[in-house]
């Protein structure tokens, strides 16, 4: 505490500094006067007494100076004056300062933006009470647990509460005479009580309630117009009235994480849940596990299931932060983490290139000022003081750059939070500036300060007094030269790495865009309909209606839409028995149930056998069509048509055809297996997709198809898109990656070429005299040209060599983000990158060369 009091006293002193000086002087005068009075009483004359008193006191100046320094915060005042000095120096060199701050700001802005997004998407804590004591339960290796098992577990009362949530559901919302598909999260009545999720308006769903809903802020503002009386309003959801009891706050972060944001939470039993348990105070997850394990064994006795053992692979995992990432590490999260990590690294490299430029500029300035430094040192200035002053300059640049970068970050993240990202899953990231971002930026500014300033400050002041004064800085100039050359080589090398990564992603995008998905997307419309009550009859009527539309060539139902993660294939794995024999083949495969016209609509040729027929219906012998990959895997080179195939669930079907391979889940997948079954032989499900082939461009038909289906059943929500739109969604990751990386790479290249330009120009200026002498002695313009271009070539060649060697290793891990056709090791990449760099380097060399050629010996010799 005493420390803070002291700081407070010192700061208070700053405000009465001028009065302090006056008072101190007065006090000292009084002291001397008092002593003189005393001496006078002892018998001295007035003048003698005063003289004697003064002598005894000693230097009043020193005394006052020491008294003052008791109050001063030396480093703070020094810093302030250093910063003032630095600001003046930068103002004199406005273009330089602007360029430095601008390039730092762009790099830092990009870097902090990606940091903010990554932090929000990956590490944010969910909005709930005490996330530390909330765990996600999985039994038999699965987080999805049927309702009956949920009841069993809850009745065991092992924890302070056990609640269920199901995020995977689509809800039909009937508003006026239209239905909309909403992303609904179904929860158990005690969900809000157990998790303690706060609501902004109204109240949460309470235990034992049914037919109530809590809506998210986004849904409330977007779809309900921010209606202030929304609490108590009734929404028709899946044909039943639900009462809105509460609205979630704007910054609600769902337990599921990753920015996933549904439209509403409602009470409904969807058949299976993800279970969240509230651990009693102080209970560790290990202790909770030992408590849960016997309950699961008991559950195995109560619900024996040949296919799964409940007590197997029981796990309790964290709901937020880094812990969750570690636990889910094996699943689909890792590529996302790696992608963000790559972006952070790439943008950090851009910051470093910008730093190298700034450092190079400061270095040049430090050397032109080395004479001044030498004089100051010879007059008793300490080197530490000079280094500090030079560092203040880079500190100021770093602070300005980081500040501007943060503004850019705020603007970008604000934009991002507002723009709806066309992801198939409802994702909303609430990216807000927080303490972590601030700490990160401060650290970044610190690193930038040291990276840009330390070397120039140390090298610029190293010369010592003698050398610099004697030679006018020639010697040190040479040293600084080498250093700046090294910086440029480093920049060029790193740019090569960036360019290689950028090029790979651009090629990836081109490849993905021109990808042959294996089906025709140009004339296809997909309409998804949710919740028809009498499905069988409904599908038939819907098909009739669609076929009756003018311009429609064919229509077919299907259970899955390819290349759409939200409506994706599920990939069951299992053991097939070809010819129902004893040989089993274990495969992961995609499965779709389709109508007879599906293959014609999608332009997927049937290579062998036949397509489905109207006669392949319920009750008729079960039939199946395989894709080429699966056919080869199961039957080798024999024609599978007519063979019996026993499915993993022991169902026997007859193979009637082989369809050409195509893409199912992602464009990048290779050798995917697929099974098609007749739609009409499928068990009924809650929703269906209709594929429609149009004669003209599908965009004009989307509306008509939508209306035709919407008119069929008022309670069903319909969503219609052209296949092209769905394709765009599938391309989004490639587009995003290419856009970010390519722009970063180009920006890095620009900075590096500015660096090269600066160094060459500086070198030319420095060698002006030398060039003049050479020209005077008969050097041809060709010789001068060779001199400048030679230097450029040397720098570029060394930078390129190092860069290519680095890139060859560094881009290798990128293959995890790229389609297989784009190989990071492809030598063509490096050739292309090297040519781009050579071209840009050539451009950067032009101006310095022209400058050197224009040297007039008469003028140059008078130079200096």
């Amino acid at each position: 505490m005493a420390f803070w009091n002291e700081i407070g006293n010192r700061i208070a002193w700053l405000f009465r500094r001028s009065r302090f000086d006056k008072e101190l002087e007065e006090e000292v005068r009084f002291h001397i006067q008092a002593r003189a009075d005393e001496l006078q009483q002892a018998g001295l004359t007035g003048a003698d007494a005063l003289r004697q008193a003064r002598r005894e006191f000693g230097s009043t100046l020193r005394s006052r100076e020491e008294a003052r320094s008791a109050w001063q915060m030396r480093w703070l005042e020094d810093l302030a004056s250093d910063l003032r000095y630095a600001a003046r120096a930068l103002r004199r060199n406005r273009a330089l300062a602007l360029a430095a701050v601008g390039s730092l700001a762009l790099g830092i802005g990009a870097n902090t933006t990606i940091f903010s997004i990554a932090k929000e998407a990956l590490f944010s804590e969910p909005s709930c009470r005490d996330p530390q004591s909330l765990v996600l339960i999985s039994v038999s290796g699965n987080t999805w647990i049927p309702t009956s098992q949920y009841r069993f577990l809850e009745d065991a009362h092992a924890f302070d509460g056990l609640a269920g949530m199901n995020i995977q559901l689509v809800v039909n919302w009937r508003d006026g005479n239209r239905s909309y598909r909403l992303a609904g999260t179904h929860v158990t009545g005690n969900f809000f009580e157990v998790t303690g999720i706060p609501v902004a308006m109204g109240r949460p769903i309470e235990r034992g309630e049914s037919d109530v809903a809590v809506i998210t802020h986004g849904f409330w503002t977007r779809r309900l117009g921010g209606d202030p009386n929304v609490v108590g309003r009734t929404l028709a959801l899946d044909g039943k009235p639900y009462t809105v009891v509460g609205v979630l706050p704007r910054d609600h972060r769902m337990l599921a994480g990753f920015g996933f944001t549904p439209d509403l939470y409602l009470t409904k039993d969807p058949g299976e849940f993800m279970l969240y348990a509230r651990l009693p105070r102080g209970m560790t997850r290990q202790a909770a596990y030992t408590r849960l394990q016997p309950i699961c064994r008991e559950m195995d006795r109560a619900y024996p299931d040949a296919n799964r053992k409940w007590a197997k692979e029981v796990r309790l995992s964290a709901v937020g932060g880094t812990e969750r990432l570690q636990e889910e590490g094996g699943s689909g999260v890792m590529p996302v983490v790696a992608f963000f990590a790559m972006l952070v690294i790439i943008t950090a490299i851009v910051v470093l290139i910008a730093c190298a430029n700034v450092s190079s500029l400061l270095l040049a300035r430090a050397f032109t000022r080395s004479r001044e430094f030498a004089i100051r040192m010879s007059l008793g200035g300490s080197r530490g003081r000079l280094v500090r002053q030079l560092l203040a300059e880079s500190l100021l640049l770093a602070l300005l750059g980081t500040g501007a970068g943060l503004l850019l970050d705020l603007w970008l993240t604000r934009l991002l939070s507002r723009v709806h990202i066309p992801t198939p899953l409802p994702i909303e990231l609430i990216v807000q500036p927080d303490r972590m971002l601030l700490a990160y930026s401060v650290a970044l500014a610190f690193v930038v300060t040291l990276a840009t300033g330390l070397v120039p400050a140390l090298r610029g002041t190293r010369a010592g007094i003698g050398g610099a004064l004697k030679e006018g800085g020639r010697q040190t100039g040479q040293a600084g030269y080498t250093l700046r050359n090294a910086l440029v080589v480093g920049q060029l090398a790193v740019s090569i790495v960036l360019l290689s990564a950028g090029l790979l992603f651009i090629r990836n995008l081109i490849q993905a865009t021109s990808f042959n998905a294996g089906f025709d997307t140009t004339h296809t419309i997909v309409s998804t309909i949710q919740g028809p009550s009498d499905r069988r009859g409904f599908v038939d009527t819907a098909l009739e209606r669609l076929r009756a539309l003018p311009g429609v060539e064919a229509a077919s139902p299907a259970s899955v839409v390819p290349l759409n993660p939200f409506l994706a294939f599920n990939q069951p794995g299992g053991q097939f028995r070809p010819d129902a024999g004893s040989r089993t083949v274990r495969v992961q495969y995609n499965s779709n149930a389709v109508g007879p016209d599906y293959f014609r609509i999608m332009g997927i040729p049937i290579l062998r056998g036949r397509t489905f027929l109207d006669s392949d219906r319920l009750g008729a012998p079960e039939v199946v069509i395989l894709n080429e990959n699966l056919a080869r895997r199961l039957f080798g080179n024999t024609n599978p048509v007519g063979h019996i195939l026993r499915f993993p669930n022991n169902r026997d079907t007859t193979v009637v055809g082989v369809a050409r391979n195509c893409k199912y889940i992602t464009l990048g997948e290779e050798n995917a297996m697929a099974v098609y079954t007749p739609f009409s032989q499928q068990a009924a499900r809650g929703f269906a997709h209709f594929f429609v082939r149009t004669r003209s461009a599908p965009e004009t038909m989307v509306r008509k198809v939508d209306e035709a289906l919407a008119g069929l059943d008022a309670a069903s929500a319909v969503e219609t898109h052209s296949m092209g739109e769905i394709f765009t969604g599938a391309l989004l990751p490639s587009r995003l990656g290419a856009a970010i990386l390519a722009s970063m790479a180009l920006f890095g290249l620009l900075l590096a070429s500015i660096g090269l330009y600066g160094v060459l120009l500086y070198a030319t200026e420095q060698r002006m005299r030398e060039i003049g002498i050479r020209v005077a002695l008969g050097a041809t313009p060709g010789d001068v040209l060779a001199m400048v271009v030679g230097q450029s070539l040397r720098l570029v060649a060394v930078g390129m060599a190092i860069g290519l060697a680095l890139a060859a290793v560094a881009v290798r891990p990128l293959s995890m983000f790229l389609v297989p056709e784009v190989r990071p090791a492809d030598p063509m990449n490096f050739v292309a990158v090297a040519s781009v760099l050579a071209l840009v380097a050539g451009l950067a060399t032009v101006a310095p060369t022209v400058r050197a050629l224009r040297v007039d010996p008469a003028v140059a010799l008078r130079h200096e």
Partner: protein
Amino acid sequence: MESNPIPELLPGTLYLLILRTLSHGPLHGYAIVKRIKDASREGLRIEDGSLYPALNRMLVKGWLTSEWGVSENHRKARFYRLTPEGRKQLDKEAGEFDRLVRAIQLVMRTA
């Protein structure tokens, strides 16, 4: 920060002496010097030049406060007063000093 202006004084004892002198009531700078000189029968002399830096360092630490008043010979002078923290510091330093002196005496007598 800590200069050692008076070789005759043990390091750090200047604060102790000032604190002790002020413990009877506020005094101005000159009176402090005089009081120490008199009390030590001229055995201790504080250099005038180092008094004010020391006083100011003690002000910073919050052991003293100062205010302007009128001296015995009717001149304007700054008076220093002990704060509660200053009194605490005095007790602490006096105790430490006593222990130190006793220890040194022990060594001098027995060793």
